């Protein structure tokens, strides 16, 4: 319960950054924070106390393993997040080349 709330605070910190910051780099970093919080939250939901990692070995039965379905799906999510970050960085670099600033209040003419 406390862990869930702390993780939710991390998500809200990212949301705060997206809403209030005027700097494109800070907004990209805030999106990253929100992604970390969401991934961590999903893994927290799948943890079973006293359980071990889901790899079969000698003397290990499936009953004492953590929930591995969120782990597989979050693995996908992390990789996609890297692609999103790369694309956002490319967009920010292009905007900087055109407008010479990262301040979103000064980037007004968003033509092609």
């Amino acid at each position: 319960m406390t862990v869930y709330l702390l993780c939710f605070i991390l998500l809200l910190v990212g949301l705060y950054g997206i809403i209030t910051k005027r700097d494109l780099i800070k907004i990209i970093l805030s999106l990253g924070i929100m992604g970390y919080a969401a991934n961590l939250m999903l893994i927290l939901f799948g943890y079973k106390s006293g359980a071990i990692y889901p790899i079969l070995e000698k003397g290990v039965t499936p009953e004492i393993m953590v929930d591995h379905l969120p782990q597989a799906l979050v693995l996908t999510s992390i990789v996609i997040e890297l692609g999103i970050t790369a694309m956002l960085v490319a967009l920010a670099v292009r905007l900087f080349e055109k407008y010479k600033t990262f301040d979103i209040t000064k980037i007004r003419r968003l033509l092609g």
Partner: protein
Amino acid sequence: MPVETWLIFVISFMILGSIVALELKDILSSIIAIGIVGLGVSVSFLFLQAPDLAIVQFLFEIFALIILVRAFIKKDYHQEEPSRVNKILVGVTIITLIAVFLLSVNIFKSLPAFGKPLMETSEYYLANGAKDTGSANLVTSIILDYRAYDTLGEVTVLFTAILGALTILRIKSRSKDSVEEQL
């Protein structure tokens, strides 16, 4: 110490790191402070018994840092003085987010407690994963067998994102001079 205590410590550290990253003026320090958050997530994955994820998160963090530093290290960076409207926006945002947090406490109470997951689909995968797919690592059995189409979609998304980033970086802006004149 139990796992939950360690997790509370690590996640508090990550919250601190993210606030520092958002409030610092210097952009290089800010990017490095984001590294704290990402590596904290990696350590949390280790505590939560997800070694595959910890490795992938670690690699993701290093690549993200390299991309961000490479892209932004040479840019001139001018931080504006915060205006009055911005301060009002910050105040309203903080109050709203605190309200959202307080309202969400009840929702988190209604979830299953930490350490007692609802394993309904996973029980089948855990019991039959090795028999169905022949993989000792059950995470791999889901990624590459039960949900292989999901992985195919992931690879497609990644490919499209990289293609988009390359395309964005290669386009010559047509009206570069005219925009600069208007500014």
